[in-house]
């Protein structure tokens, strides 16, 4: 058996799974310290079950995203950009919000080096610059150092050498290579690496707490954490790459919808207390966004699921005559403020109860919403969701729409924008189920210049690198398969050039292989 946990803003959900069967599911309240909420969920989940039967604990958590958003728990990071003589005068963190810069600033340095798009050196490294840099870092002692070389995603060797060299001369300082954190886009990759590096100390504390909690419950199984692409990383990797968990919330609901229905290609709507997140399942994984992702005010190129949020949830407030609702919501105070709990606010939950779609055992039926208002609200729900589904469905294809989340019953009807609605069992704990899926991934990207290597050779080479990464992350090599090959043409070049990205996924080698 295995346990899936999902720490959200309001609820900490937990499920006990046997293969693809949900044995038990609980919802606890998320606490300020996170740990006590996790322990409360585990304690109620494990009632009647022996911890020794559990062979895997997986956790989706928003702690690291929140740390960046709230500027808490962050350490000082030095940014070393290796790009001169290009990029003169443009410093790291140039357009960050002041408070995020202050919370993470351990110095910024530009030095000569890096590569060009065609693999030629941009400039040679300069020994004198390197020794001055080492001296400066040794004097200032930041908690971590990030090295970003121009074109390091396609030419990683120089970045790796510099990282090793600085790590050797700076004992006690964590030194990180930017190509471990993202693809092309130097500033975005550097930003992502700085954010990640600023979380390393906090990641150690979180990982230690998770180990402590699982021990306290007698769990002897390995602990994994779910990452942005819907696969797992072990605690050692969390200690190195905490930022890979930033989007695990929406990712886990989308993966959970896949696990609950077996539908590999679908639209997923996760209806919560204040918003609905609409995402897309492609090949069993969340479709990734190609846009630049803003994290706490910094521009990054994290690969995150392509999700849009609209103000539609159980606590959404209804306007006069039902002509409008949201984005204002009573959120966590539903049980104090909604009509059905004796409050004075009319919410989408009240409409769903009046329409007979939703039954809450301790809710009152004494103040039903007028039929006309219910009708107006329901058609508005359908209209808003249909527009969002339309926006997300790929190229107009009619895909099934899977409804998950605690508010799934708020949505009336059988179709949206012509797509059939699917309502799986256990939809309310889909995110915890998503967190429990035992798969790991690997990714690699590179440029292909026409006339050099053929497309097939480049893809083969990248697949090899991605597979190695997946195996390092814990995948059993026999189960590895390609889930995505993306090719983007680069315009305005005399020689046709394209960027190719390969993603692979495999089952976790030590688990029961319960992926599907």
């Amino acid at each position, binding site marked *: 058996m295995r346990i899936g946990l999902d720490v959200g803003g309001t609820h900490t959900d937990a499920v006990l799974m046997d293969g693809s069967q949900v044995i038990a599911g609980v919802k606890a309240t998320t606490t300020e310290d996170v740990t006590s909420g996790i322990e409360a969920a585990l304690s109620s989940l494990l009632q009647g079950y022996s911890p020794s039967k559990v062979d895997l604990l997986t956790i989706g958590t928003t702690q690291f995203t929140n740390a960046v958003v709230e500027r808490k728990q962050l350490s000082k990071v030095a940014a070393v950009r290796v*790009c001169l*003589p*290009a*990029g*003169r*005068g*443009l410093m790291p963190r*140039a*357009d960050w919000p002041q408070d995020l810069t202050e919370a993470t600033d351990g110095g910024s340095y530009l030095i000569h080096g*890096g590569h*060009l*798009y*065609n693999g030629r050196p*941009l*400039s040679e490294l300069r020994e004198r610059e390197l020794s001055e840099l080492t001296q400066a870092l040794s004097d200032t002692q930041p908690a971590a150092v990030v090295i970003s070389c*121009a*074109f390091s995603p396609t030419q990683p060797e120089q970045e790796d050498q510099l990282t090793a060299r600085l790590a050797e001369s700076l004992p006690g300082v964590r030194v990180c290579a930017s190509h471990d954190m993202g693809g*092309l*886009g*130097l*500033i*975005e990759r550097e930003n992502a690496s700085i954010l990640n590096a600023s979380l390393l100390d906090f990641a150690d504390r979180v990982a230690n707490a998770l180990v402590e909690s699982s021990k306290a419950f007698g769990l002897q199984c390995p602990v994994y954490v779910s990452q942005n692409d819907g696969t797992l990383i072990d605690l050692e990797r969390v200690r190195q790459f905490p930022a890979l968990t930033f989007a695990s919330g929406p990712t886990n609901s989308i993966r959970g919808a896949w696990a609950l229905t077996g539908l590999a290609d679908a639209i997923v709507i996760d209806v919560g207390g204040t918003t609905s997140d609409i995402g897309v399942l492609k090949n069993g994984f969340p479709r990734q966004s190609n*846009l*630049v992702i803003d994290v706490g005010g910094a*521009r990054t190129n994290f690969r995150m699921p392509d999700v849009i949020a609209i103000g539609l949830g159980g606590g959404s407030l209804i306007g006069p005559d039902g002509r409008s609702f949201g984005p204002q919501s009573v959120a966590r105070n539903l049980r104090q403020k909604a009509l059905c709990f004796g409050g004075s606010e009319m919410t989408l939950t009240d409409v769903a109860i009046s329409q007979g779609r939703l039954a809450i055992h301790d809710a009152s039926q004494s103040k039903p919403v007028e039929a006309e208002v219910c009708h107006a609200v329901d058609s508005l729900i359908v209209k808003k969701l249909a*527009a969002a589904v*339309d*926006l*997300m*469905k*790929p*190229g*107009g294809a009619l895909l099934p729409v899977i409804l998950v989340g605690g508010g799934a019953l708020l949505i009336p009807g059988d179709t949206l924008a012509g797509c059939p609605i699917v309502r799986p069992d256990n939809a309310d704990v889909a995110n915890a189920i998503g967190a429990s899926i035992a798969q790991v991934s690997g990714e690699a990207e590179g440029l292909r210049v026409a006339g050099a290597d053929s497309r097939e050779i480049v893809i083969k080479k990248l697949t090899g690198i991605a597979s190695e990464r997946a195996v390092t992350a814990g995948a059993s090599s026999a189960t590895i398969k390609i889930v995505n090959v993306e090719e983007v*043409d*680069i*315009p*305005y*070049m*005399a*020689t*046709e*050039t*394209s*960027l190719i990205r390969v993603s692979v996924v495999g089952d976790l080698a030590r688990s029961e292989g319960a992926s599907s």
Partner: protein
Amino acid sequence: MLLHEIYPMKITASDIDDLSLGAVFLATGGGGDPYLPTLIAKETLAQTGGVTLIEAQSLNDDAFVVPVGCVGAPTVSLELLPSVDETSKVLDRYEELVGRRLTAVASFEIGGGNSLMPLMAAAARGLPVVDGDGMGRAFPEAQMMSYAIAGVKPTPAMAIDYAGNTAVFETSDTTTYEYHIRAFAAAAGGMITVAEHPMFGAQIKASVIPSTVSFSIKLGRLLREQRGPIDDVLPALRSLFAKSVYGSVHKIFAGKVSSKTTRTVGGYDMGDLSIEDFDDPQRVCSITIKNEYLVATVNEQPLAMVPDLIIIVDAETSTPINAERLHYGQRVAVIAVGAPSFYQTAEALAATEPRCFGIDMAYEALDTLLSGKP
């Protein structure tokens, strides 16, 4: 009627976000992501205290002006970052080459990131910038520039790469120049800064599309302050354009993007876009893309074509959307704006009408195509 600007006008770092948003609108779908140029332009103007914008007509006939900008693949500059001093260095080297001091700097292209390059170069050198550009929008090739159309030679031209290496070009015509400069860009890391089409005051007065820099700032400010559904923004947009070198503004279509196909051919993004009418899905607007939006037709009837400007905006926010950012399902409005009168002449149309982009269609003016329609 042209709004009378008060020159010289000061541009500072705080104007750059508006200028860059206005430039995305005027880029008619092309011009690349303005993020990096915006960032370094703000940095340069903050360091130098700003730049002075002057009217072309105020230049003496023997004043010496050169336009500057970048040529290459915007995607490459994601790693090969531009330098704050690269554009000013090309001016230094250009003056050495021709043995003359520059009076002012000019712009090739107001659409996209190239709108910002001349400001940085001029600010670093303490030179003024001419308010205006050589396109009034974005175009993919040098021979489509008003300077080239008016007979200004592209050379002597100088290109400089990230490391300060330079190349000098002397070519017989602009088409050859365009071909050679692309080859140098590819060899020099994918992105270069160039100074080309040098002009005397008399020449730039006759060939510049005037006031487009100050106009782009006002346009960006309007789009930022009035951000909202296109039908609410349209009246303000119309009155702003009425006081500019551009023709009239029309919302020619509103609907949902129903398909988009693009491929890269010969260094260009080529593609087709279909938009379905919100109310009548049978009514479809098709747009031909070659880096920029070139021709808009509705059920085979042309409604707008290059060199008139075709802009796609988000229907809810009126924010302009670049061709590479458009995708299925987006709710958009198609806006058409009459090209400046310079581009309505026979000489200009011969270089910029749909045929010049391989589209078998003779140019018809926006007002003619839309006459009798609301």
